[in-house]
């Protein structure tokens, strides 16, 4: 089971769109895929039309009392299942603090699913927290959507600095990529060149900022289903191919 965290300290960078579209592509390619919506906003859950309800709430998850398999919902797409998000996940950090081995809960919960899934995507809420640390401990690689702005660059630096300082999570492979790119903005182009030079491991594929991606909320479907030929859909396909190549 390969665990992919889609993570950024910053919000609004395209994490959920990335997680949903890549999870769809993984399943389409024959991989038995699970997408875990860890964000209390439950946007991935909304996109896939599943009710945002976790039986027992975040508390039972944080304390490892829940059988994760019993919470899984099939999506409308072959090979893609979802662990829905729930508003109670907003207090996940507080709840994790009370748990035994608070940074390994996520991994412990996922282990029983190892035979059922080939790939697990974790759609993470923004911020850096105890939950993030759980993601770092569980994931084999971390995809970091990075909008070409100074603030995004700064949060990427914060993330890499945090990982470097914490030995237990320093082994995780971090794969940043540019997201929500507006190639018409000269400022973004210059910044992308600079960030790419500073992060040579960065993925080459960039996801454009388009209305097609924004309309995922209207269609409530992965981009590949309603606009497979659009530039953003093609970029997600290229991104997934690149991740597989690197992973």
């Amino acid at each position, binding site marked *: 089971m390969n665990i992919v965290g889609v993570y950024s300290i910053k919000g609004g960078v395209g994490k959920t769109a990335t997680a949903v579209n890549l999870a769809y592509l993984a399943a389409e390619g*024959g991989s038995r895929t699970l997408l875990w919506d860890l964000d209390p906003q439950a946007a991935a859950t909304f996109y*896939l*039309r*599943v*009710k945002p309800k976790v039986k027992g709430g975040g508390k039972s998850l944080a304390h490892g009392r829940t059988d994760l398999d019993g*919470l*899984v*919902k*099939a999506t*409308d797409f*072959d090979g893609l*299942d979802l662990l829905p998000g729930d508003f109670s996940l907003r207090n996940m950090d507080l709840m994790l603090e009370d748990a035994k081995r608070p940074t390994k809960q996520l991994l412990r919960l996922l282990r029983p699913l190892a035979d059922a899934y080939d790939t697990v995507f974790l759609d993470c809420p923004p911020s850096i927290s105890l939950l993030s640390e759980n993601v770092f401990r569980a994931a084999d690689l971390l995809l970091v959507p990075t909008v070409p702005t100074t603030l995004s660059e700064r949060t990427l630096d914060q993330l890499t600095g945090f990982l470097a300082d914490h030995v237990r999570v320093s082994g995780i492979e971090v794969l940043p990529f540019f997201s929500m790119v507006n190639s018409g903005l000269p400022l973004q182009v210059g910044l992308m060149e600079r960030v790419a030079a500073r992060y040579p491991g960065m993925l080459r594929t960039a996801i454009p900022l388009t209305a097609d991606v924004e309309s995922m909320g209207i269609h*409530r479907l992965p981009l590949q289903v309603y606009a497979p030929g659009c530039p953003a859909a093609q970029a997600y396909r290229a991104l997934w191919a690149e991740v597989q190549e690197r992973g």
Partner: protein
Amino acid sequence: MHQRFQDYLLPSGSKPRLVATLTQCGWRLLEDPPGLAAVRLLDSFDWGAYLAGAIVEERLEAGKRRLLWHDLSGGEPTLEQLIFDAPGLARDLAPGPVQGRILAAIGVRRLLPAVEMEVETQVLRLLDDEEKTLVRLVIEEYRLSGKEPRRGLASRLSVNPLKGYEVEAQAVADWLSHGFALEPALRPLLAEALTLGERPPGGYSSKLAYRLDPAERADEALRQILLGLLDTIEANIPGARENLDSEFLHDLRVATRRTRAALAQMPGVLPPQVETEFRAHFAWLQQVTGPVRDLDVYLLDFDAYQASLPQSMRGDLEPLRFYLLSHYADEHRLLVEALNSVTMDHLVHHWRQVLTEPTPAEMAPANADRPIKALADERVWRMVRRVRKEGRAITVESPPADMHELRKSCKKLRYLMEFFQNLYLGQAIGGAIKLLKVLLDNLGTFQDLAVQAGHLQDMAARMQAQGLTGTPALLAMGALVADLLRRQETAREAFADTFRGFDSDRGRGLFRGLFHAGPGGADPGAEPGSDPQPDPGHGS
């Protein structure tokens, strides 16, 4: 692949009524565009997957080729994997969950089509208020391909539950049973489809399972045995001719060997001129099928040969594989010529004619009208004593030829016991065959390794003479020969103990009780395990 919750028979033309009724019941419904798939049900010639309790399906749908493993008992979820080419030999399939199961079930055999069908699929999705699919109803209409008029199977409707929505699926299934009064399909569709193929499922086996009557005339029983063996020979000719897999030729050769053993070991049952003529014919068949079988054995064992060498030498053995493959086509051509020859045609047809036409009473030899059980007792017991005598005569100094002779006698004994198995108590004769098999395995290992080592040495000399090999390959073949001979020595060392197991008190008692106990059961005058003619030569 979605798990099926329940299958129903869907009467022809009832789909519109089903859709209307579901809508009236308040369900939001979405109909996917219909799909068309080409389906082949596959199995080996000897039904390895079916006998392992499964059906293998190859499904071509929407440009994708999938291979599925359906557990016939329904207790296990269906396994599937994507493949890119039509499946053939199990070992050539790409690794995956289905390949693993197939390989375990059919080994070296090839997947052959048993039934070919077209299937039209229509999916009805039952949605919630977010337009999320809660339950899929799948309607499938199967038609057998390649037949005019095309034969169909009753349409099926299956309730396919989605993970996390099982309660909804159960409610729909209950409604279909009670509210819509659909009849549940009691038999899996694919199992039903399998019976419509030209080959009946499980219809071929190379195993012997004759039902003989102890009082039956010996000639009638022997004809039954020989006809069964002829059926096996004929069934395997096309596959051996096309070289579909190595087991066709193997089964053909085993049936030939059994035929020869039956003719030789049951004398005086068929007219003497028939025995003489057909013993010669079947000796010819055994001989012309030998070279390809030898090459098959080397090629099947090739990976094991390589694995027995140190890592650094394994690649050096490749010229040998090339040499074997380059001779294969020539040898197989000669085999096909033999199988297509007038001699073969005459053998098969004339033999069937002889076996199906009764022998005139005046020409019937002495043993023809004896009860088969009495004759079987006599012939098997005679062979038991021969095996025992030959085995006891083998010492550490005995030449390999003596071991070879003993192996041939053991094989004849085994064939006789297998022909007549149902005339004896199942457990007892099963135990006797098992005991003999241990000895045969030891002798077989000894003999096969010796033959292989000898052939490899010959091949190495020929390859060198023809300039087909360099020093590394010769060294690798030398190392391989050394390993085979070492293993042969080990088998030779194990012979004495193995034979002692066969010739133990228990073994002797078992064989005597079965074949020399007299009409009233166990011989009351004999001590358990005693032998009328103890042979002092037992010393190896």
